[in-house]
């Protein structure tokens, strides 16, 4: 026995440390279960097509037993796919080697005896737990009738249609709703059962010997269900006065029960709808390659999100107010109802991966600092820009890890005093920064292939191109007689002269209309001749 245990322990450790095994299992989990994976989306689509086609072929087979060889092949191939899928789902449902090692290590650490049978029992129980789950039973019933000795189970082949529940999210929601309202539906079913039983018993008693259509209790039950469902085929009709009274009562109860049933399902759907929308939104976000996350859709959030959205940036908004999210969605942006300070939500949204910038613009400093902290804890590289509500809190934002902390009051102070000092220049600067007149400041990075490398400023003929060079930002610091300013670890050359030579990685800060700047950028990007 010890030999077997030691063999199994070795095997479990081998599996535990096998990268290949881990990767394959991870791949299968992504393929079959990851709710937002693209792979799963395509797999589900493939399975839906397979299920629908295989059911259609099976239906065709009812009247045409001699199937075309191609159809036969298709049915067999789809069966192989279904069996493989069933086995893979069984495999990924639990990690047997982990369960085994957990038990073994527990026994080892606590000097307790290790029971191989109990461990195997736990492992097998776990697998059985999957086998008896409703969806797994459907899967199995969709496969079994294809086995010749079990041909009599052919009707269960229709269970393949139920397999669609696995692949369509909205169908899954429907089953969730039904299972969540189990208690209400069960109570209603008991009441309906009671009404049916009373109604059918009464009609059976009153009409068996009078009505030639009601001979058995089954006839009575059939009649009462048809009457309650307000279908009224008319194949069985009461002939006595008592029978007619029972019919009337049954119809009233039937309508009431149907109304109850509808209201239970509809109310449940409404509560579930928000959840469904959120999961759809998450899937939409998953598809974005890169986006900017705006936390808070108040007035500042509205302005930033609108400008970025109009510029073609992908923007995702988080707010705890459902009304604001509704508004964001109406404006064509992706809105998520949730608390941006929760690490789980930011992690789900891909902060630091697909979300490269986070803007914290709620109307509370506590919340903005907390969101900043949460985002920073998720990624060191991400750019965090926060709005400071009370200017004296600014330092806390920097401590929390914000790249920029912007105080509206400080800006107002600066602009207000500048307005007094120089109203015209204030207006000009404001126009350029807010781009209200179409003239703006923009940067032009000189990349490796730019044709402007080693050219002088004069050769750019900026004046002729209706542009004004504010200055050049250069990374390397070199002695110069020109007017320069240190900005972080770079040097800014203000209004450099015509003979100033442009280097690789310089950034030109240019003023002008957007299309003139774009023309210059386009020109700069032309590949430099070798």
């Amino acid at each position, binding site marked *: 026995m010890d030999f077997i245990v030691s063999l199994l322990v070795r095997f479990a450790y081998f599996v535990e440390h096998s990268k290949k095994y881990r990767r394959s299992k991870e791949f299968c989990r992504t393929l079959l279960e990851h709710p937002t994976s693209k792979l799963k989306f395509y797999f589900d689509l493939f399975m839906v097509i397979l299920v629908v086609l295989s059911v259609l072929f099976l239906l065709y087979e009812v009247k045409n037993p001699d199937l075309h060889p191609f159809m036969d092949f298709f049915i067999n191939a789809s069966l192989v796919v279904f069996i493989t899928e069933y086995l893979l789902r069984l495999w990924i449902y639990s990690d047997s080697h982990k369960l085994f090692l957990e038990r073994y290590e527990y026994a080892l650490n606590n000097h307790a005896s290790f029971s191989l049978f109990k461990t195997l029992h736990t492992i097998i129980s776990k697998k059985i737990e999957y086998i008896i789950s409703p969806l797994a039973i459907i899967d199995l019933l969709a496969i079994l009738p294809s086995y010749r000795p079990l041909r009599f189970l052919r009707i269960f082949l229709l269970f393949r249609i139920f397999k669609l529940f696995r692949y369509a999210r909205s169908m899954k929601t429907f089953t969730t709703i039904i299972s969540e309202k189990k208690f209400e539906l069960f109570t209603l079913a008991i009441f309906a059962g009671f009404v049916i039983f009373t109604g059918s018993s009464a009609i059976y008693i009153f009409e068996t010997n009078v009505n030639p259509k009601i001979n058995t209790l089954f006839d009575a039950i059939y009649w009462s269900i048809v009457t309650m469902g307000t279908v009224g085929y008319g194949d069985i009709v009461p002939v006595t006065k008592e029978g007619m009274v029972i019919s009337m009562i049954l119809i009233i109860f039937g309508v009431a029960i149907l109304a109850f049933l509808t209201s239970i399902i509809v109310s449940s759907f409404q509560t579930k709808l928000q959840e469904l929308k959120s999961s759809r939104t998450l899937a939409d976000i998953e598809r974005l390659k890169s986006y900017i996350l705006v936390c808070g859709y108040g007035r500042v959030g509205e302005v*930033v999100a609108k400008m970025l959205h109009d510029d073609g940036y992908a923007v995702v908004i988080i707010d705890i107010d459902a009304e604001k999210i509704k508004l964001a969605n109406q404006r064509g942006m992706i809105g998520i109802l949730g608390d941006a300070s929760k690490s789980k939500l930011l992690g789900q949204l891909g902060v630091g991966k697909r979300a490269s910038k986070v803007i914290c613009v709620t109307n509370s400093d506590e919340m903005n600092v907390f969101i900043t902290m949460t985002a920073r804890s998720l990624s060191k590289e991400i750019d965090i820009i926060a709005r400071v509500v009370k200017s004296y809190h600014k330092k806390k934002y920097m401590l929390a890890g914000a790249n920029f902390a*912007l105080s509206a*009051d400080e800006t107002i102070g600066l602009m207000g005093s500048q307005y*007094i000092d120089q109203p015209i220049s204030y207006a000009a*600067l404001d126009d350029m920064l*807010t781009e209200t007149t179409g003239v703006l400041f923009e940067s032009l990075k000189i990349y490796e292939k730019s044709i402007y490398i080693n050219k002088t400023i004069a050769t750019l003929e900026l004046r002729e191109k209706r542009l*004004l060079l504010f200055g050049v930002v250069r990374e390397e610091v070199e002695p110069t007689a020109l007017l320069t300013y240190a900005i972080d670890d770079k040097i800014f050359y*203000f209004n450099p002269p015509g003979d100033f030579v442009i280097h690789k990685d310089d950034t030109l800060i240019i003023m002008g209309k957007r299309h003139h700047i774009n023309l210059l950028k386009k020109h700069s990007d032309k590949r430099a001749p070798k």
Partner: protein
Amino acid sequence: MKTEKILIFGFTKSAIEISSQLKAKGYNFTLIDNDASLLPQAEKLGFNLKILDYTDDILLEEGIGENVNFIFTLFDDDAKNVFLILSVKALDPSLHVIAITHTKDAIHKLEIAGASTILDPYQISGKKIYKLITQPDVMNVIDATVFGYHDLNMEQITITENSPLNHHMINDIYPNEAYNFLLVGIHDKELKKEFIFITEGFNHKLDAGDILVVIGQTEEILRYKKDFSL
């Protein structure tokens, strides 16, 4: 000390920031509020706060006095700002009022009331954040130079009657290699048009009263002003 008479109504966060900036630039101003409980805070911050019931027109008229250049209405409540602008404009329609707004809805009301300029902190913050996202290099440079601690400033130069620049064409006077500054644009007094950026490419004729907006070192601009009798 500069001579402009500036009144700031409402002792709020924005008022404190504007007052600090004005103080640093050497402006003389009066802070006014109707809430006496703000006095200790004002004293603590080193401001002289005048308590005045601005809803009383007689007291307001006395409080404003004569020769006021600018009035700021910086209350946190838009209704108070609108009411104050109406009161001030009723006393003297020519007064220059700069108002702050806290809701989108109030902007139009402040305009109708007669505010000359409306400061919208939410718009300003939003647009600044947008620039930081889309053009971080530009904002870094502007913040460090024009807005920041360096001596690079955006200033306006008014063309005087006696200046040698009077009646000259813009293309004749700019660029001038003897002076290191940038001409951003011109505000034409006669045409009362919007600000004309230099990049528009118009060769404008300068007249007395026209305003040139330039960016450069303060001393360089002063040198230019002196050399051209501006």
